[in-house]
């Protein structure tokens, strides 16, 4: 049973049947999955969702697959943690972390999009999964395609963090490190996708893949007791995650599962790669591509595919954007760890830092519920913080040595 109607061009509205395509052949706009919302409304009730297992497929009526999923049975339904210490420090009524640093199986939100993409790729009859990635997506495609028994080709910038590379290689994909930045890797992959019949999850499978991100938003709403937060801060790379979280809130509103949505949406980027937040701050609807220079490599997309739509959502909802320097990102990673016991990757530092700035500047209201999206795990980007932590010298195994040590840290 599927509730999918087809694909529609976001720009000109032309409709297409479900195929592994991603661009409108008339105006070159991106394609988006459309659903039969009347049927979804009838069948997707709170009670039905709540009776299902705690993973992302509990929202399957609004995920674009026809048959049974092939992967992602333990993916999603990550903690929505109450961050009491941050709330107190910032003077905000309620702060929550949507903590995808513990997502299954590869510790980032990308496990959600890959679960949908591989299921759809199988439905289309592909036997090879591929991706252009800044690291997290590579990890997830490598792992989930291994389990789904698919061939896997992973293309990444060659200068990725060592842990991210190890976290791909262990699943034995064909890893293709490319001497270039993500935008160049992506362009290469578009050419390969035209030539080889592979499922590039974020190219020819992109309209389906992106829908997997909606599960973040569905979960946040359900975990808040079927309502959406007053404010949400989302890290932006291509801008896709933020647009899909917004779409998920509006879909829940449309099918009557949450009250009218008044959430303000805020974008977070690194100052060294801020094409989206720059456009938001300038009030411009043109995204000016940049050459990324930031430790937040998972967000280092200089020419973001969904940047226009991401900036528009912040404008339309009364949100805004903030970006942070490398130093501020590291400080925020440490703040999050010390205050809430969560070790996030650099993108998490970006989001926490942005949230703090937006609260301090009054853009985010202190009287409401604030959700901060943590999208990846700190163990994958230890390089970013290693120079900023002091590893103590060892002591001899006797009590005098310890007391000497204890005196010194005084």
């Amino acid at each position, binding site marked *: 049973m599927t509730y999918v109607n087809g694909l529609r061009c976001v720009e*000109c509205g032309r409709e297409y049947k479900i195929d592994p395509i991603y*661009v409108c*052949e008339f*105006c*070159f*706009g991106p394609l988006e999955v459309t659903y039969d919302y009347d049927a979804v409304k009838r069948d997707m009730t709170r009670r039905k969702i709540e009776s299902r297992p705690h993973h992302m497929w509990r929202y399957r009526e609004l995920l674009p697959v026809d048959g049974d999923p092939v992967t992602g049975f333990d993916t999603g339904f990550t903690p929505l943690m109450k961050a009491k210490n941050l709330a107190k420090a910032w003077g905000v009524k309620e702060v929550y972390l949507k903590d995808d640093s513990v997502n299954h199986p590869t510790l980032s939100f990308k496990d959600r999009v890959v679960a949908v993409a591989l299921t759809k790729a199988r439905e289309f009859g592909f036997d090879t999964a591929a991706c252009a990635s800044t690291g997290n997506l590579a990890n997830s495609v490598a792992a989930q395609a291994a389990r789904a028994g698919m061939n896997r080709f992973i293309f990444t910038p060659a200068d990725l963090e060592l842990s991210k590379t190890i976290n791909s290689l262990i699943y034995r994909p064909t890893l293709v490190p490319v001497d270039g930045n993500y935008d160049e890797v992506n*362009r290469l992959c*578009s050419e390969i996708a035209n030539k080889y019949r592979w499922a590039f999850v974020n190219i020819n499978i992109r309209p389906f893949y992106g829908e997997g991100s909606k599960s973040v938003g569905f979960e946040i709403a359900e975990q808040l007791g079927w309502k959406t937060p007053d404010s949400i801060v989302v890290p932006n790379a291509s801008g896709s995650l933020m647009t899909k979280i917004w779409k998920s809130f509006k879909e829940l509103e449309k099918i009557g599962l949450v009250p009218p949505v008044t959430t303000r949406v805020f974008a977070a980027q690194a100052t060294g790669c801020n094409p989206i937040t720059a456009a938001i701050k300038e009030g411009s609807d043109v995204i000016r591509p940049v050459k990324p220079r930031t430790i937040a490599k998972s967000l280092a997309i200089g*020419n973001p595919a969904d940047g226009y739509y991401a900036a528009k959502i912040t404008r339309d909802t009364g949100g805004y954007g903030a970006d942070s320097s490398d130093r501020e990102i590291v400080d925020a990673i440490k703040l999050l760890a010390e205050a809430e016991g969560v070790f996030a990757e650099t993108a998490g530092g970006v989001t926490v830092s942005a949230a703090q700035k937006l609260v301090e500047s009054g853009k985010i209201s202190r009287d409401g519920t604030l959700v901060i999206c943590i999208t990846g795990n700190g163990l994958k980007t230890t390089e970013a913080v290693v120079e900023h932590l002091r590893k103590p010298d060892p002591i001899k195994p006797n009590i005098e040595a310890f007391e000497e040590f204890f005196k010194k840290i005084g």
Partner: protein
Amino acid sequence: MSVKVMVPTPLQKLTNGKAEVECKARNIMELVDALEKDYPGMKERLSDGGKIRRFINIYVNEEDIRFVNKEETTLKDGDNVSIVPAIAGGHR
């Protein structure tokens, strides 16, 4: 003003398979009208309501017109204009 226009593969159906055409125009919107005259159907593929479509990139001598003067970007004799759909995330 005669300029050279590089036409991307998906639009070459309209130019009888030609990847490069010549046009006379003083700015980008005049160029679109000139292309329409020679190759009917081009205007609605490239623009909507007097504006270049969001996912069409136009470069004049490698400069993205969005960062020059948008639709009013002026053209001079011998300029090279490239039309590039933004599907691959940018311009080579």
